[in-house]
């Protein structure tokens, strides 16, 4: 067990730690029962690993692999995958095709490693025919994907896992509310204030200048989209890793990072990604949504 996750005593409770979804994960709990703490961490850990196994693009025996290698055949999705598929379509529609779970194949052309290697227009044009969720036939629970198209839930998977892990941890506890905060690499959610009715204090890193913000979170979630490390730099132009699925090119003039507070981590994550997709219009977009947010240019 010791290899799966670590649990440390803190001043007001326990913190569980493990790695999942390419992020360090933390479960912060205000409670004094170490056995219950272990159960909560175990529940969250199991859920995170389950989702990772199921939707990772790097495992060739899972459902994701089955979907992406269906060769045009219709496959039937389970309940959870169906809900995610519905959600993906909703996001696609409401963003006029900007948030597109089929755009992941652009990664074959764009390698965001901080280098100055840009793909050629031909490379990009070759991929565009295989992008566009409207080309996927979705009659719940039956999914038919054109050959060479790929789905990637990476844009919502981590936030989904954060929300699910909180649910799973809370299900383990039948007594009075235990304050819990789940943090997967900066995308996080809490189930209310801490034991003494104090808010959780969350630091937001300053991407550029000297100002880090400290957020007091009493309820809900925070998620951040940003290109602090994932970008290309050529001729002094920064190419952000947020790609426009319709042109295959990066969104220009996007802020360095956008952090949004919302009721769930999924909502916060979507809003921050949609804001980034607005490029220079991200601040106006966030203002219109009337959400609490932090933008770093």
């Amino acid at each position, binding site marked *: 067990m010791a290899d799966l996750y670590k649990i440390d005593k803190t001043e007001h409770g326990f913190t569980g730690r493990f790695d999942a979804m390419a992020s360090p994960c933390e479960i912060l709990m205000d409670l004094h029962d170490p056995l219950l703490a272990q159960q909560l961490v175990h529940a969250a850990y199991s859920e995170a690993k389950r989702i990772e196994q199921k939707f990772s693009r790097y495992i060739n025996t899972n459902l994701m692999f089955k979907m992406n290698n269906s060769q045009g055949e219709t496959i039937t999705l389970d309940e959870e995958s169906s809900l995610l598929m519905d959600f993906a379509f909703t996001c696609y529609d409401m963003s006029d095709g900007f948030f597109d779970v089929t755009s992941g194949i652009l990664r074959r052309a764009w390698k965001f490693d901080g280098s100055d290697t840009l793909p050629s227009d031909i490379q990009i044009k070759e991929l565009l025919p295989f992008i566009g969720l409207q080309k996927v036939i979705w009659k719940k629970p039956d999914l038919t994907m054109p050959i060479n198209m790929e789905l990637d839930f990476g844009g919502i998977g981590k936030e989904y896992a954060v929300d699910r892990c909180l649910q799973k941890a809370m299900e383990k506890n039948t007594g009075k509310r235990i304050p819990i905060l789940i943090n997967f690499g*900066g995308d996080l959610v809490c189930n209310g204030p801490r034991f003494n009715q104090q808010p959780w204090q*969350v*630091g*937001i*890193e300053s*991407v550029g200048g000297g100002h*880090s913000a400290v957020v007091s979170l009493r309820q809900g979630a925070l998620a*951040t989209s940003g290109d*602090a490390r994932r970008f290309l730099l050529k001729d002094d132009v920064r190419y952000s890793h947020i790609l426009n699925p319709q042109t295959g090119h990066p969104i220009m003039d996007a802020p360095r990072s956008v952090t949004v507070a919302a009721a769930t981590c999924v909502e916060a994550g979507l809003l921050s990604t949609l804001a980034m997709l607005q490029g220079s219009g991200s601040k106006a977009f966030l203002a219109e949504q009337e959400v609490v947010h932090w933008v770093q240019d």
Partner: protein
Amino acid sequence: MKPIVFTLLLGSVFISGCSSMGVKPWERDILARDDMALESASMDSAFDDHIYFSKEASSGGKGFGGGGCGCN
């Protein structure tokens, strides 16, 4: 001399620990606190620097050592 040993000791901790040092952006909650800033009481430091500049043969180190003071 004792002081030099102390300096070297700190230096070696710094070098050997470098590879695993640092925090992720979302781990800056504590470091972002005002009282964790390197210079968290600048008024106090400035007064102290001025006093010790005028009473001792050393100055600076933490910042520039000039005093703009005729007191020493």
